[in-house]
């Protein structure tokens, strides 16, 4: 067994592939957080009065709130006054076309593997790229506009569709929901807005690519997706950050609203910088993601592949309010070296005949700690609701930890709630078997891990699934040798 652990220890030692810094002048706010900073952000973005008021209200809530201490993660106290809350890459205001965008910025996105050149976008993915705090360009906007689909940066939506933002902002995640959602509500910089009108099936996957670039900046993006009756959209989110010694804070909020018969599929591949082998640096990822199945027969499905961040604190949830609505959560969370993840979901059954399904696959290597935390709550009126949860943990080596915290609250006798959990180790037997067939240990680990996570990876759109598979392999590189 020892031999095996040594092997596993060695595989997880590779360098972060996306660790470069773009040399773009950035236009940023001074460090620290107070009402003036919020006014500064709001002014920079030329926001209407009502939004500034909303931010200030959130800020006042936040000041009275305390950082949550219940997650199973450890990190030094965050000095919220030592963070820059707004950093925009300097460029001419409001670019009309790609030609007006800083070439170096475009190059950064090229390096990330996302091309903003529309002609290259034949794959049918519309991309809204958010770098640090402002949305750079949104592709395919015209094509989507024909269908009435709105897909743009959050700030643009504030100007062009204020009535929609006013109606839905904070409707799923109230500004004072938790410490980080309140912080986000006060200082959010940009993000994506997506609106699918009644009866429209969005013909392409919508994609947002986040990247933290400037030093000492927090990224506080805000995503709002509204799917009207009988509509459908599949939304992809990918994230990377450059390598830095210090920790960068990321506190995002994602809100999804699904009306009657609407379906929203939200997929994330999270690859923020996880810190180095000794646990130095890395992104603190404190995210609030929640979907509201407001209408009958609506469906929201979260799929996430979490490979990055020094600390992940994230529970994409579904509120199943409409009768017959469905919530799904598919997750692969992989931690290596000194990473810590506390992630899971909440499924709140309110309507009748609501269904939820949770499939969580944790993979821990190195000295990392990986926790699943999930709540299944069945309210009084939720007749015949059902939940199935499966939480598997895979351990590599003997210095990491896997933890499961399932919470179940059932207030209706007709509900059926099932929970299954397994813990396994990548066995020496499995590795030797692969070796004996000529497969080196590193490929063997990738093969076994991908097999283990297959049920979740299968839920990702094709292009993403391939990327996710590679990421899993990269994350574990060096953990076995």
């Amino acid at each position, binding site marked *: 067994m020892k*031999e095996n652990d040594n092997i596993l220890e060695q595989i997880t030692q590779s360098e972060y592939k996306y660790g470069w810094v773009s040399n773009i002048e950035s236009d940023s706010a001074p460090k620290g957080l107070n009402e003036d900073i919020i006014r500064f952000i709001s002014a920079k973005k030329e926001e209407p009065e009502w939004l500034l008021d909303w931010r200030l209200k959130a800020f006042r809530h936040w000041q009275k709130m305390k950082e949550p201490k219940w997650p199973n993660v450890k990190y030094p106290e965050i000095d919220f006054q030592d963070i820059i809350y707004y950093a925009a890459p300097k460029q001419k205001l409001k670019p009309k076309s790609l030609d007006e965008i800083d070439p170096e910025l475009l190059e950064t996105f090229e390096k990330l593997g996302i091309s903003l050149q529309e002609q290259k976008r034949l794959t049918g993915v519309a991309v809204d790229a958010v770098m640090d705090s402002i949305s750079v360009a949104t592709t395919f906007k015209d094509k989507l506009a024909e269908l009435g689909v709105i897909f743009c940066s959050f700030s643009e939506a504030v100007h062009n569709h204020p009535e929609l933002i006013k109606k839905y902002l904070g409707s799923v995640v109230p500004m004072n929901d938790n410490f980080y959602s309140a912080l986000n509500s006060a200082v959010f910089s940009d993000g994506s807005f997506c609106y699918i009108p009644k009866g429209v099936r969005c013909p392409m996957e919508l994609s947002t690519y986040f990247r933290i670039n400037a030093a000492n900046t927090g990224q506080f993006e805000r995503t709002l997706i509204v799917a009207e009756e009988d509509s459908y959209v599949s939304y992809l989110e990918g994230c990377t950050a450059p390598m830095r010694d210090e920790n960068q804070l990321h506190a995002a909020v994602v809100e999804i609203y699904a009306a009657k018969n609407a379906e929203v599929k939200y997929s994330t591949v999270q690859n923020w910088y996880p810190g180095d082998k000794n646990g130095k640096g890395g992104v603190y990822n404190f995210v609030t993601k929640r979907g509201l199945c407001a209408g009958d027969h609506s469906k929201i499905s979260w799929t996430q592949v979490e490979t990055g961040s020094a600390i992940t604190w994230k529970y994409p949830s579904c509120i199943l309010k409409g009768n017959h609505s469905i919530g799904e959560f598919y997750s692969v969370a992989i931690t290596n070296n000194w990473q810590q993840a506390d992630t899971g979901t909440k499924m709140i059954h309110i309507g009748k005949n609501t269904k939820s399904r949770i499939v969580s696959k944790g993979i821990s290597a190195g000295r990392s700690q990986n926790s699943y935390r999930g709540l299944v709550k069945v309210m009084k009126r939720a007749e015949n609701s059902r939940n199935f949860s499966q939480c598997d943990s895979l351990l590599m080596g003997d210095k990491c930890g896997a933890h499961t915290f399932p919470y179940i609250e059932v207030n209706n006798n007709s509900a059926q709630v099932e929970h299954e959990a397994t813990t396994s180790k990548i*066995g*020496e*037997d*499995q590795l*030797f*078997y*692969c*070796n*004996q*067939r*000529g*497969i*080196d*240990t590193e*490929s063997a680990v990738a*093969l*076994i891990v*991908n*097999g*283990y*996570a*297959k*049920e979740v990876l299968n839920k990702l759109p094709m292009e993403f699934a391939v990327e996710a598979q590679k990421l899993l392999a990269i994350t574990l590189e060096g953990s076995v040798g």
Partner: protein
Amino acid sequence: MLKIKNLRASIEANEILKGIDLEVNAGEIHAIMGPNGSGKSTLASVIAGREEFEVISGQIDFEGKDLLEMDPEERAREGIFLAFQYPVEIPGVSTTNFLKTSLNQIREHRGLEPLDAVTFLTHIKERMKLVEMDQTLLSRSLNEGFSGGEKKRNEIFQMAVIEPKLAILDETDSGLDIDALKIVANGVNKLRNKENAIIVVTHYQRLLNYIVPDIVHVLYNGKIVKSGSKELALELEAKGYDWIKEEYNSTPV
């Protein structure tokens, strides 16, 4: 092809192999028989490079190369195949995907291009017939939920796909009923040629009725104590292993 000289190996300080000498040439089939605990499976594992066994002394030469210097995957790529006594399950990885990874890494080692999907699938389909492998098993997770017999058959199927120079069948007959045994043996016989060699490790003579060995070795207490023609296997079947033990134990050291 394979030359083993005075091989001694231990696990957790217990010496299991106490001086093995064995020479296998291309085109030959060797059977290694012996009572339980005599070291048969250990020998198979040491040749394949299982790390929990420690080689205390001795040499293994494979086609002029020092096998003991190689990692298990390198040995496999050089042409050594072990049909496992207890094949391992790998959830979520189909047999097809597994074999593709295997075959392409072996090919890369030999300086060959990876097989394209069509050639690979054609190769697989053709090989399936050799062991009458059910196609549905190929898309299922490797060995997961397979019956004992299916697992063993899958081992021989993999051997057929990989086409090793030296195949070691470790108790491939255990857990097989007579029909499955015949199919497996049939497959092995079809794979046999002048260039390759097979070592059949077995407790019983039964399998040797179908895979006829050129030479039979008896392993006892970590040493090959007797070698002979295929008739030796029949003798063991009739008389059991006790006479071997007596003969060995009465021999003055």
